[in-house]
């Protein structure tokens, strides 16, 4: 009934969707799985009308359609339940449900609240939620909000002739186990009214709920599995099965680290609700990779070491000294450098030029009584522009105008030039093209040769395996397993996935 044929989508430098065929039948629940960056979210955006495909056709009941925006898709019966709660928390449940469609309750410019409440109660009954529609959304639990979102999408039923297709994007990520069960029960009951596309990282849930599963990899659908047609392991192999070139990750340059000294030591560190009982040690020349799904605690560990969070339990020791006050200033003084994931938000200041960005964390070294020695700053920037072959017309170039790879080099140069020897890298290669990625890998090996310890959250599992000396697998804020990764004895993707999920 709903079908995509050979749909293509390109972004500058990325071929996000490669001739994707996708089909949803009436009353069906279709699973969609793939690694981060496999193209799942692009595909969903094409389906609910946020992106327009560059090629291929979308048909509903055999008729070709083209959506300019999500509203047009909604009018054809395609609704989206967002992963991040898209309800406006200071409005009531009924206002949220009918947001943008209040006109039906308006007489002479006045809203008939009673009629709206009545209609909302009818929608809520579809998802078996017994709450007052005048409740303010902020006071609901996450599970209830998820159901309200679903009820909101189900209003399409009355507005649209024909069938509904509802996308569920990671609907279970904030729910407890029994809430997940309840949600699944409701979704199954609703298949009489609508078809569903279900996206989740949790493979067991996808297997349990879906009639068919589309497996995506590198922007293409690599397989379609019917219910019971494959085991979790087989699907995981399909998700990740690509050749890993050892050269690519500079494995030949991986040398044993120096285990006589400890740069960072975490003992039983815990942050309630995020991580618990985390113990790990980082040595000079070591690349330590934190592996886990989104929300498994990788970022919380990095931020604790960087002093942006104060652990509630346990101790952090850096270079032999126990850390008492957790601030970024103290961490920087200890030699910690942090390359955050959101390069645009926390990595570089757009509008400031290369040398200003490079010395931002170390202006004290370039000033007397607050007066900057700009000449020295510029010289430092010129040195690093040469050393890392940063493509910028000069040290005066605005960092906001550099390419992603060159921005990342500026961020790395910022910390390395200041003598940081504990580097925290959060997705350092995200959004970079292959050449720029290789440059970053090369720089990581260079840093290790200089005795820097690196804690890495990698963009893909291959990257984690290829680069690391040690891998720590996290799940729900706890350490599941620790792997030693000497060249030649590296764990396989499968080993990691098994510990992750």
């Amino acid at each position: 009934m709903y079908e995509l044929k050979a749909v293509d989508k390109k972004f500058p430098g990325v071929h996000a969707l490669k001739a994707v065929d996708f089909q949803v039948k009436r009353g069906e629940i279709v699973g969609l799985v793939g690694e981060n960056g496999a193209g799942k979210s692009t595909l969903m955006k094409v389906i609910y009308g946020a992106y327009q495909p560059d090629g291929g056709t979308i048909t509903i009941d055999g008729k070709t359609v083209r959506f300019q925006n999500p509203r047009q898709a909604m009018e054809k019966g395609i609704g989206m339940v967002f992963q991040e709660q898209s309800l406006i928390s200071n409005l009531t449940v009924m206002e949220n449900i009918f947001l943008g469609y209040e006109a039906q309750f308006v007489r002479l410019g006045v809203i008939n609240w009673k009629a709206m409440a009545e209609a909302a109660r009818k929608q809520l009954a579809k998802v078996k939620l017994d709450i007052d529609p005048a409740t303010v959304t902020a006071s609901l639990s996450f599970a209830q909000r998820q159901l309200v979102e679903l009820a909101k999408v189900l209003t399409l039923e009355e507005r649209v002739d024909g069938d509904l297709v509802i996308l569920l994007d990671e609907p279970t990520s904030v729910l407890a186990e029994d809430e997940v069960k309840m949600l699944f029960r409701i979704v199954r009951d609703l298949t009489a009214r609508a078809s569903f596309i279900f996206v989740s990282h949790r493979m067991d849930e996808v297997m349990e709920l879906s009639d068919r599963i589309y497996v995506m990899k590198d922007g293409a659908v690599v397989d379609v599995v019917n219910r019971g047609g494959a085991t979790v392991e087989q699907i995981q192999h399909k998700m990740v099965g690509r050749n890993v070139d050892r050269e690519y990750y500079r494995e030949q340059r991986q040398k044993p680290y120096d285990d006589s000294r400890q740069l960072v030591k975490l003992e039983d560190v815990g942050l309630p609700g995020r991580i618990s009982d985390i113990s790990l040690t980082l040595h000079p020349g070591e690349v330590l990779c934190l592996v886990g799904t989104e929300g498994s605690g990788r970022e919380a560990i990095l931020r604790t070491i960087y002093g942006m969070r104060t652990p509630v339990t346990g101790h952090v020791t850096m270079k032999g000294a126990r850390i008492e006050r957790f601030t970024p200033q103290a961490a920087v003084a200890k030699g910690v450098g942090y390359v955050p994931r959101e390069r645009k938000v926390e990595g570089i200041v757009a509008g400031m030029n290369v040398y200003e960005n490079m010395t931002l964390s170390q202006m004290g070294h370039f000033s007397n009584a607050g007066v900057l020695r700009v000449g020295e700053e510029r010289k430092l920037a010129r040195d690093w522009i040469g050393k890392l072959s940063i493509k910028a017309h000069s040290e005066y170039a605005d960092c906001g105008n550099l390419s992603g790879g060159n921005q990342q080099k500026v961020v790395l140069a910022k910390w390395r030039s200041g003598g940081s020897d504990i580097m925290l890298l959060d997705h350092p290669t995200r959004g970079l093209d292959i050449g720029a990625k290789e440059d970053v890998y090369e720089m990581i090996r260079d840093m290790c040769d200089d005795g820097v310890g690196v804690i890495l959250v990698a963009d893909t599992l291959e990257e984690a395996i290829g680069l690391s000396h040690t891998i720590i697998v996290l799940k729900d804020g706890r350490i599941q397993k620790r792997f030693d990764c000497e060249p030649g004895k590296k764990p396989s993707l499968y080993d990691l996935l098994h510990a992750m999920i």
Partner: protein
Amino acid sequence: MTRFLTREAAIRWAPLLVLIALVILFTAINPDFFAQRNFARIAIAAAPALMVAIGVTFIIVMGSIDLSMEGAVSLTAVLFCFAFLWLGGTLAAGGWLAIPLALIVGGLIGLINGLVHVKLRIPSFMASLAMGFVGTGAAVLITGGDIVRIEDDTFRALLTWRIAGFPLMVYVVVILAFLAWFIQNHTTLGRNFYAVGGGEELAHASGLNVRRVRITGFVLAGVFYAIAGMLQVAKLGQAESVTGANFMFISITSVVVGGVALWGGIGGVWNTVVGVLIVNVINNGMVVIGLPDYVQDGMLGLLVILAVVLSTDRRNISFVK
């Protein structure tokens, strides 16, 4: 688009072109506009406003806003006069001590602004607006509504002593503008303003003490307001509780018209200097060509909207609150 026609260059040079165009326009309508005496008049009118505008420029570059200038200028002007008279009434007799005193008071007003904003987490516009009212109120309280006069010839020399046709205060202001430019471009503090305005989270993640930068910024702004207060006294020979009136609109208008972005990180002292000149040239020029003053206010209001429209890449801003 060529490399040289960047947005950066446009923000830097467009206001200057507007200024030149305005001068040509007014001269064409009334050639009397283009006279040294008239330029001196513009410069005198612009001098205190420039000090206020430079003060608030630092704050706007940080992405905050400071609306305390009217109260701060009034209070520092009044206190300066009282201290000046109490210390002997002439610059030579010890009245000069009132200058550092006024600067300290200005700094303290800024410090309170900054502390209220940062420590109590009150939006800067609200904290500073409230502080401005407190300042005006305090000025009324101290003067009892009276006018305080200073008739020291040495101090008034700021206005009366002319070099090449321009009074001394114009040169003082030029030097202070250079000082502000130096702070902006050559000190860690100035760099920190841009870092905070360009990306507060990033500044924090680079180990900067963002809260301290913010508070220091407000202190610096307060000091510049105090300078403006004293120049206003030099210009008028007196101080009262309304000495600072109108500075809020004039200074913010100037900063915006000069091309400093209200969301922080873009523009600087140079833009503000040009902006203040644009605003004062318009004010003066409309008098010279004989338009009534209510038209002037309307024109300035339109100019602000026009400047923001032209200087903002509005496609990248999804919500405006």
